[in-house]
């Protein structure tokens, strides 16, 4: 399992040859795209809704300081507490301090990519606290010691037989000869095992899809209801999320809620939407409500070419429609955020030297930007990171040399025409049946494609002859 974004090209090649990944990716591409298309069509005027979503998120990103201060005041007024974490380490320490203060030994977790980003689970384990993932997909990959392969479908790369093997290995108190053939049997087994974990947990940690500043509320969407049991059963509820998730109020959230599930799974609304403002208070001891706001590199994107990626609401539509992700899946990226989202975000927060490959892994087909519910210009941001990589001298030497050679010729029209006409004639000699099948030093390129053989004259020569 690749954990190093610098190894992306190698991991991508391996993923292309992974026979188990192919059917999962094919299903993923068909399902998500078809469901989104259906959900968008059923809504009617989705474009106006996208513009509204973009404007709401653009306002948020450019007023983060004010909105975060408003949020803090509202959360305080409702008996909660806001913790500000500039770095991943600050965030881990903030969570640990809350858990220590409340004498919490076991925690259940709702789905949260930010806690993956700050690598919370290994840190908690090292400090004697047992974190239990409760989203079914997250639970499965946690048992298998794998990272999620998709931001909303963490275990989509596994077959039900692999899940059954994992459960048989890990759920040792159950009859080893039980049948685990049906998917629903697996779901019900996880439900029973995890219900006991929910009942026993001292604290629950969830993410947030949105934060409503005026109301001091954190909002999560789920289909399973695991986020709710994570919040509602233990003494303490901790929300860990990025600073950019804040919007003005619940009216903004209402509009974004029409965009998010349709863009993600095509649903008009997810089965559960939970608006959580303050301690649960069902039992007298349920008094703790904490929001840990994580910056971890986000604020430095404000005012840059990459600022628009902060509008992201993590629906995964860009990932689901990306031909690169569709060919290699999520693990090859070696980072928490994959696909076009990762390509636009990772170089900004993790560094171009570490994750420059992500921005290069694009055909620039533009589907990601077409389906983005908040209209993030993803290819433009990827191009920006490519330019930064080039400017910092981080691009591969063969690429910079080739580009420099082309630029030299392109700025000298006579030389360019001469070179082009020589090349056209030379390539004609290599042609067989109208196509060039191989060239020296270019085995890699020709391994999977042909090049149409030129007919002997360049476009410019033919143009001169015909006018």
């Amino acid at each position, binding site marked *: 399992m690749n954990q190093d974004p610098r190894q992306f090209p190698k991991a991508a090649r391996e993923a292309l040859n992974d026979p188990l990944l192919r059917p*999962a990716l094919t*299903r*993923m591409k068909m399902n998500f795209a078809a469901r989104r298309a259906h959900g968008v069509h059923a*809504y009617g*005027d989705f474009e*106006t*809704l996208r513009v*509204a979503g973009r*404007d709401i998120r*653009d*306002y948020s990103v*450019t*007023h*983060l*300081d004010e909105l*975060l201060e408003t949020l803090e005041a509202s959360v305080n007024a409702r008996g909660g507490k806001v913790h*500000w974490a500039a770095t991943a380490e*600050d965030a881990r320490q903030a969570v640990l301090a809350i858990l220590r203060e409340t004498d919490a030994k076991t925690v259940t977790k709702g789905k949260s990519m930010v806690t993956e980003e700050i690598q919370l689970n290994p840190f908690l384990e090292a400090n004697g606290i047992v974190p239990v993932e409760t*989203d079914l997909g997250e639970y*499965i990959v946690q048992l298998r010691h794998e990272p999620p392969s998709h931001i909303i*479908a963490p*275990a*989509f790369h596994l077959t*039900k037989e692999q*899940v059954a093997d994992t459960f048989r290995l890990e759920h040792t108190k159950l009859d080893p000869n039980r049948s685990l053939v049906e*998917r*629903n049997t697996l*779901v*019900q087994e996880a*439900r029973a095992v*995890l219900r006991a974990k929910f009942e026993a947990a001292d604290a629950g940690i969830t993410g947030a899809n949105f934060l409503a500043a005026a109301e001091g509320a954190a909002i999560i969407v789920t*289909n*399973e*209801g*695991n986020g*709710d*049991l994570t*919040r*509602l059963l233990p003494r303490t509820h901790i929300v860990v999320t990025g600073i950019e998730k804040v919007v003005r109020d619940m009216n903004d959230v*209402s509009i974004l809620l*029409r965009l998010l599930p349709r863009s993600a*799974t095509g649903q*008009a*609304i997810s*089965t*559960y*939407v*939970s*608006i959580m*403002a*303050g301690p*649960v*208070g069902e039992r007298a001891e349920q008094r703790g409500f904490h929001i840990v*706001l994580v*910056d971890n590199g986000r*604020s*430095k994107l*404000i*005012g*840059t070419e990459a600022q628009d990626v902060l509008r992201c609401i993590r629906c995964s539509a860009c990932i689901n429609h990306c031909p690169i992700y569709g060919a290699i899946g999520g693990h090859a990226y070696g980072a928490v955020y994959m696909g076009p989202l990762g390509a636009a975000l990772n170089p900004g927060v993790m560094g171009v030297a570490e994750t420059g490959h992500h921005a290069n892994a694009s055909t620039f087909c533009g589907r990601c930007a077409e389906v983005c519910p908040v209209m993030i210009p993803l290819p433009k941001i990827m191009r920006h990171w490519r330019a930064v990589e080039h400017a910092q001298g981080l691009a591969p030497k063969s690429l910079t040399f080739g580009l420099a050679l082309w630029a030299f010729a392109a700025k000298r029209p006579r030389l360019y025409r001469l070179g082009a006409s020589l090349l056209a004639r030379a390539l004609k000699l290599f042609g067989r049946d109208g196509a060039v099948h191989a060239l020296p030093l270019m085995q890699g390129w020709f391994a999977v494609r042909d090049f149409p053989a030129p007919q002997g004259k360049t476009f410019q020569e033919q143009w001169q002859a015909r006018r």
Partner: protein
Amino acid sequence: MSGRETILAAIRARKLKQAPLPGPYKAPAVAGDLAQTFAKKLAAQQTDVRVLGSMADVPDAIADILRGRNMAATIHIPPDSELALLELPNVEVRREPPGQFDAAVTFASFAIAETGTLAYAAGNGNPASWHFRPVLEVAIVRPGAIVAELEDVLTDLRAKGGLPSTLNLVSGPSRTGDIEQTMELGAHGPKSLAVLVLKS
């Protein structure tokens, strides 16, 4: 510097161009009768929606729902709930929180027609966890509870003093697509949802 100051200073140091206030957005109007639209949309989400004349019809409906699922004639009703006065001659009533194989009945605070969604405002007699603990949830929707969209719920709650500690929106039984992207019901919350819409 504290984390708070560090983050706010970083944002302020970089903030260049502020986007204007977003214009108002109005979602497409919900067509037709709100109660019918609500029932139709929620029924499309694997939910057993039944239209009843009044509260007097609820006991028989609950007994029928339990029988239809081969469940024991036992139902959990939250203490202090307005439902506490409900007489259920053929069903045993329990007051403690339901377990994962039990059934529970509650009033929905609102029903949203746009998406076929129940909205539960947590509070005394309406514990939020009860919507996630049982295997079967029965929700009762009173005629005045049906609204067009989520914005209407928020307006109503604001007029009554603001959001509750938890506002749960529920649009069907619990589900997951996490194994082979195939939908299965009953992931963590109720595997089965029955909604009784009262005409009066």
